Every structure is written in structure tokens, then in C-alpha cells.
């Protein structure tokens, strides 16, 4: 005390003794919010999660995160209608992140580099039969295998893939890609038995299986009654497209009329053009706006020279032409006949009016119920018969590869729980990371990379793939357009902007922690977090 300088009585101290955290009325907490892309993905992919790895060029880590949910990225990257992009927050800034294109890049990269699946789950000793090797069956088999179960797929057709092979044309899904992703699943230890049509599900199950997943799809073409002369060919889309894979291209003639307004109608018309038809006309009873087909597909078809007759129904098919009747929309938006007719020349008519499931294998299954041609399942994808689950086209009217993959995954998890005598409860979902949660100031301006489209002439005459892919450079660029909605991507903003140094940086990959001894609760961190990963919650005082 006495040896202190003049007028000094206290030792110097650090302000660390002053715990300013006691001023706080609100406390910041780190949260993970559900990115809208993830929320919109029917396969439940963790898109933001795999983009996070792709952003740093760690493509294998990205692919591995992706395949935790979906084993078919190269296929998805081509045929998925990417509802994720429709939900992407970036669309409010410039354009949605090209999620689907990056997914395709990762899928292709995995094929090129020979990445394989792995699982460290111990064998469960249980056997599951999967009926059908479409996306629903493949996804279910994959997830069951990941969980340690032995899986056998029985497939009626000569090759695996379901509608991905016998429906979706090559120019959208090259078969070497399909083959590679199926081969990887077989390589993972899934048994595939081709040319085995199951005709009685209970008998099949009795051959030593503990549970069954049904993924038989919907392959019976719906017909419409059209009076037709002998010489005119009336075919259906399912057999035309199926024929492309096996029997060989069907003879459609020079002028092909396709009847229907869905994606299948477009695929058949575009296939017909590639087979040499000079004219491919789509006849649809409603308007373009009402068409179930996606707008971009209609656009691509128009570019390929396909023509459309909107608001028209086919009345009869003659030898060299068909008779169509004009329709008009009534005040409720339904098409009504007008009594006005027109003849258009046609060598063949292909019906693309939708498909129904062949459910003959399900006769006499106690408890299992079928409504309007669809098998009823509960929230865990189980049918009314315990131990028999179902998914994909046979259970719903939202019929896409992605929905089928999602069903397969969900069913696999439920089967796993069921086999353990538990009931499957999906993990609680995080709060949605809406656009309002973001501080978009921090994101660089960056337009979307457009995938190259093969030039029109080449496309019309060949079955080459229409859309090109990203290369490593623009895949990285595209991944980095992701805003990482609702999930910390370690931009250090909270760490930097705190006037009280109350944020502790834990190091790469470890994120951050608040030091509540000094945090005054000003909320700058939450306001300046670009991706909305900090929430202010009231203190209990």
C-alpha cells in the first residue's frame, strides 16, 4: 500500500471482474433452422448440409452427406423436378441455387471416382423382402441395408429400375448412369432377383422374411374409349416407352398424335420425334396453364418442334386421320364440348392418360385395404397388414422418383423400428428458416449458372442427353451461392460484431459459443447473422 505512487490506493485490475452479463434481459442462443430447400425435398435430403461441404470443394464429404438420405444422386440430378429450388430463399435475391445441377455433379463425380456405400451397423439378423426395383424399392432396400438388415429385391422385369428405365427416356436419363447407381446398390450387399414376378405377397413373405416392402409402381395404362378404324394404330404410352427398352422402337408413322397432358405425354411425343416422326401433336382437353406437365418440359418440347392442340378431345380415330372436338372452359374452369369438330391427319395415336397399379399380388391380405386403386398406408408407410409396408406410385397420386425415394426411406426406418418392436417416431423438425430470418446484405451478388442445353437439331434426331452438367469450377461457384439458411456456416460475423467479445470461437468445424458472463444481450449478433442461426430469447429475471 505504501509503495504505491502518489494518490494511488488500489492495485490496477482488469474489467473482467465486471460481469456485464447481469445486464442482459434477452439472451442469444445458436439454433439450427430448417432450410426451405430441405423442407421441400420429398426425399428429405439435407441439402444445405451437403452444399456446405461442396462449398469448400469437399465433394466426397458432400456426396456422403447427400446419400445419407438418397442413394441416387446422379439420377436425381437429372430427373427430379426439384421442388427444393422452388422453395430456395435465394430466388428472392436473384435466382434459386441450382441445387439439382450440383446434385448431378456430385452424382457423376461419385460414379467417375468409384465412391461406394458403407455402413457400420452390425447385422440385425432380420431379412426383408422388397417387391419392385423402382426408386421406392431401391431406396427402401438401401436404407434397410444401412441399418444392418439383409434385403432381397424381387423384380418382375428383366432389368432393375422400374419407370426410371421403362418410362423415363434416355435423352433425360442415360442408361449408363442408371446402371451405375443400381450397380453400386447391389455392390452394397443388396440381393436382386430379376424376372421374378411376385403373385402372392403372403406366400413370398413366408419364404423366410420378417417384413415386406411393396414398391410395385403403377404400370397399367389407363384407356379411353375411342372408336377406331382397323388400320389406325391406337397405342398406349407405357408400352411405347417400355418397347424402347426391350422389344425395340415401335412403328408410329410420320404423324403421331399423343393424347394427354402430363409428363408422360411429353416424353412420348419427344420420343416420337427422335424416332423420325415429322409431326408430333399433343392433344389435350384443357389449356396449357392447366397441364400437369411442368412448364420447362413444355418449353423444351416446343423448342423441339412439338405442336399442341389445347382444349381438344379425340372423338374417333380413322384410317389416316383423327376427329377432334373443340372444348371450352366453363365458369368453373372445366372443359365442355362445343360441338365444333376438326380432322387432323395422323398415322397413330398414343394414349398418355395416366397409369394404375397392378395390385393382383395383394389379394386376400388380411387388413390391407385399397381405395381408388391406391394401397392405404399409415404415417409410417405400413399397410393395414402388420409387417407389410408400401410406397411409391402405388400409394399416392404424387408420382415422382423423388417421392418414391422418400417413401422408401421412411418405410425403411419404420420397418427397422417395427422389427425391433418399437414404433417409428420421426425426429422433430426445426423451425423454418424463412427469408425474413436472413440478413442478405452479406451475400455476394451472383447469378445462377445455366446448364447447357444441347442444340435443337441434335436433340431431335438423337437420344443423347439433353441437359449438360456442371464442371468442377461452376459446381463450386453454384454451391457457394447457397445462403446456408438457418444453419451456421462459420462466417465469424457473430464473433466479430459483438462489442463485448462475448462470443467464443471454437475453431474450424466447431462453430461458436456465447460467453454469458459478458454478453449484455444487445442482439447485434442475431441481427447481423447472415443465415438466421441466432435467436434472442427472453431471460428469466
Amino acid at each position, binding site marked *: 500500500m505504501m509503495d504505491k505512487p502518489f494518490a*494511488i490506493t*488500489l*492495485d*490496477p*485490475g*482488469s*474489467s*473482467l*471482474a*465486471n*460481469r*456485464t452479463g447481469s*445486464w442482459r434481459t434477452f439472451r442469444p442462443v445458436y439454433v439450427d433452422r430448417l432450410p426451405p430447400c430441405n423442407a421441400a425435398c420429398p426425399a428429405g435430403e439435407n441439402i444445405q448440409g451437403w452444399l456446405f461441404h461442396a*462449398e*469448400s470443394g469437399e465433394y466426397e464429404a458432400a456426396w456422403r452427406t447427400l446419400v445419407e438420405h438418397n442413394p441416387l444422386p446422379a439420377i436425381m440430378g437429372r430427373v427430379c423436378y426439384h421442388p427444393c429450388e422452388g422453395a430456395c430463399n435465394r430466388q428472392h435475391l436473384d435466382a434459386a441455387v441450382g441445387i439439382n445441377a450440383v446434385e448431378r455433379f456430385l452424382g457423376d463425380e461419385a460414379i467417375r471416382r468409384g465412391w461406394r456405400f458403407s455402413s457400420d451397423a452390425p447385422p440385425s439378423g432380420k431379412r426383408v423382402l422388397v417387391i419392385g426395383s423402382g426408386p421406392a424399392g431401391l431406396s427402401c432396400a438401401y436404407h434397410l441395408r444401412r441399418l444392418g438388415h439383409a434385403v432381397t429385391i424381387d423384380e418382375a422385369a428383366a432389368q432393375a429400375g422400374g419407370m426410371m428405365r421403362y418410362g423415363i427416356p434416355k435423352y433425360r436419363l442415360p442408361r449408363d448412369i442408371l446402371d451405375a447407381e443400381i450397380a453400386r446398390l447391389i455392390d452394397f450387399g443388396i440381393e436382386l432377383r430379376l424376372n421374378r414376378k411376385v403373385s402372392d405377397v403372403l406366400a413370398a413373405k413366408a419364404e423366410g422374411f420378417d417384413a415386406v416392402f411393396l414398391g410395385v409402381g403403377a404400370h397399367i395404362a389407363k384407356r379411353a374409349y375411342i372408336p377406331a378404324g382397323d388400320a389406325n394404330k391406337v397405342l398406349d404410352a407405357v408400352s411405347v416407352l417400355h418397347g424402347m427398352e426391350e422389344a425395340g422402337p415401335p412403328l408410329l408413322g410420320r404423324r403421331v398424335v399423343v393424347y394427354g397432358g402430363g409428363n408422360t405425354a411429353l416424353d412420348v411425343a419427344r420420343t416420337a420425334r427422335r424416332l423420325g416422326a415429322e409431326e408430333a401433336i399433343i392433344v389435350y382437353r384443357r389449356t396449357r396453364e392447366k397441364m400437369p406437365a411442368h412448364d420447362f418440359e413444355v418449353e423444351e418440347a416446343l423448342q423441339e418442334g412439338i405442336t399442341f392442340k389445347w382444349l381438344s378431345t379425340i372423338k374417333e380415330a380413322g384410317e389416316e386421320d383423327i376427329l377432334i372436338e373443340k372444348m371450352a372452359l366453363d365458369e368453373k374452369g372445366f372443359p365442355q364440348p362445343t360441338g365444333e369438330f376438326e380432322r387432323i391427319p395422323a398415322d397413330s395415336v398414343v394414349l398418355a392418360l395416366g397409369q394404375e397399379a397392378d395390385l393382383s399380388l395383394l389379394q386376400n391380405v388380411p387388413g390391407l385395404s385399397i381405395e381408388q386403386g391406391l394401397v392405404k398406408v399409415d404415417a409410417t408407410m405400413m399397410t393395414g397388414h402388420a409387417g407389410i409396408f408400401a410406397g411409391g406410385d402405388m400409394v399416392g397420386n404424387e408420382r415422382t422418383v423423388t417421392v418414391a425415394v422418400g417413401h422408401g426411406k421412411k418405410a425403411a426406418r419404420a420397418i427397422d423400428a417395427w422389427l425391433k418392436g418399437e414404433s417409428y417416431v420421426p425426429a422433430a423438425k426445426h423451425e423454418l428458416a424463412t427469408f425474413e430470418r436472413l440478413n442478405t*446484405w*452479406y*451475400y*455476394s451478388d*451472383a447469378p445462377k449458372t445455366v446448364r447447357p442445353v444441347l442444340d435443337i437439331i441434335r436433340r431431335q434426331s438423337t437420344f443423347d442427353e439433353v441437359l449438360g452438367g456442371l464442371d468442377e469450377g461452376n459446381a463450386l*461457384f453454384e454451391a*457457394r*451461392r*447457397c445462403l*446456408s439458411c438457418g444453419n451456421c*456456416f*462459420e*462466417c*465469424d*460475423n457473430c*464473433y*466479430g*460484431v*459483438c*462489442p*463485448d*467479445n*462475448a462470443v467464443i*470461437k471454437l*475453431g*474450424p468445424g466447431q462453430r461458436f459459443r456465447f*460467453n454469458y*458472463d*459478458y454478453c*449484455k*444481450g*444487445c*442482439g*447485434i449478433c*442475431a*441481427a*447481423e447473422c*447472415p443465415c438466421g442461426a441466432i435467436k*434472442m430469447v427472453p431471460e428469466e429475471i
Partner: protein
Amino acid sequence: MSYQPIKFYQTGTFTVGNRLLPPEQRSVQAQQKRYNSLNSGHRACQGCGEALGARYAIDAAMEATNGRLICANATGCLEVFSTPYPETSWQVPWIHSLFGNTAAVATGIAAALKVKMQKGERRHIRVVAQGGDGGTTDIGFGCLSGMFERNDDVLFICYDNGGYMNTGIQRSSATPPAARTATTPAVGETPGNVFGQGKFVPAIALAHDIPYVATATVADLRDLEAKVRRAMELSGARYLHILVPCPLGWGFASHETIKMARLAKETGLFPVFEAEHGEITAVLPIRHPLPVEEYLKPQKRFAHLFAPRLRTDVLTRLQALADRNIQRYGLLEKP
């Protein structure tokens, strides 16, 4: 712009850090073990822009000088909230001076250090003087101008929060026109601070033709750090004027501090530029141009411009000031 913005995507150099950048391109504030020259436990208000700006600037100066730095500090919030006897938040050799003589104190320290270095007793140690806008543009202005004209080897940093905040928000010569303060109440025909008074000290510093003059805000960290780094590369008199919003004095919510600084810059009311030897060398361009209302409306000190009646006449005059800055400094030009 004083630094090369990183033109790759996601957040580039807009955020404090970026895990995708190589370490040498990251900011000082992003370092896991950073200086924290102004440590936790200080008594600044919640969300104080001055506390933030001071740590940004002094940490950058510490980095640039490898920790060989002495700070002289004018009185004002920065001093009072950081160093109530006997404790301090400073983790840098730091000396308190009076309200008006900081520049002169720093000059003295620099002179002493020069002698000690010539005698071989010390390695090269640099000096920073810092204070609020009151301590800089008003009472400290004589000493500051003297330090400039003698070209003393000092970096003077002014933390501009537009008023005498520490003593209860009185007007300074850096208070913007129309702003309400304790001494410019929002009454009468021309409420708030008077138009046509006050001064913009960066422009006056520029007129001294000193080696370096720059402005910055707490909303553009990378720009601020680059300016401190550049200042420390040069010797002689240097001046850095940082806009540091004050939630208490301006009347906005404590989480809006950085947003206010950003809006001041984006509306053009606060021009961000740098100059060497009297010539402007770079400006930080406006990214998304905005009308001045966007900046004024969230602040209670301008509330009388919006209620009980909308003072379009006053807003027009403030917009004219912003437009003049945009013109004068070329704030809308693409870099």
C-alpha cells in the same frame, strides 16, 4: 476501395470471416486468438458502436505493429466505460489525457519514443491517439490541427457518434443537421440541430495535405482494417474518422448499431473514402442506393421529422446533403 474485395461467392469479404478463404486473407477480427485490445467487462451501453469500433481499430493497429503500440485517449465514453479507476479493459499500453489535448499528448509520446529509439533503448513503437467527436472536432481541434501541420508520427482516430454522449448527448460540431440532442431540442420551425453549422473534419484533415486521411464505419470491417493497416504502413500525421452509431444518443434498438452505420453509408449521408497527401485515392461505393428516410426513420433523434407531421422540407434538405456527398465523392461510381 482500400482493399481488394474477394470476388468469389457466398459472402466474399462482406462478413467478418469466411471459412473458405486462406488464413492470410481473413480479417484480424476473425482470428481465434485475436488481441481483444478492448476486453470484456467494459461498461459501454448494450450495442455500443464506439466500443466495437475501438476494438476493430486498435486490434488492427496491434496486428499491423506486431503489438508495439501505445494509445493516448481523450476523455469521453470510450475512456469512461473502459477505465473506471482502478480497473481497465485495455490490453494495450494506454494513457488517459484530458478532453482536449490527446493529439498533443500523443505527439509528446511519439517524440519521446523517437529519442529512445535513437539512443538504442527502444525498438520502433508506434502511437495512436483516439477520442470522440467532441474531443476531436471541438475542444481537441487546435491540438489536432497542430499535430497535422507538424506532421507528427501519430495516427489519430476519431470515433464519431455525433455528439457529446458521455455527458448526456449534447450537440457537437459533428452532430448532423436536424438531429435532436439535449442542447438542440426538437422545437420551433427548424427543430433539432441547425443547418449550415458544424464541420466535416476529414475534409479539413485532407486540407492539411497529411500522408493519410480516411473515413470508415463499423459496418464495413474489412475496409476499416485495411485502412488501419495502410495508415500504419505510413509515417507522419494520419487521421481516421470512424462512424460509430450510439443506440442511446440516437435512439435506436441496441441490435441495430451496424445496420445504422450501413444505412448512413448506403444513403450517402456518411461518405467513406481515403486519401493520401491531400488527394482522394478511393471511395467505398454505395451498393444499394437508398433514400435518406431509410436511415433517419428508425432513429428517435429524427422522430420529429416524421410526426406529428411529415417534414418533407427538412427531409429534402437532408437528401440534398446526401446527394452532394454522392456527387462530391463519386459514391455511385462502380469501382
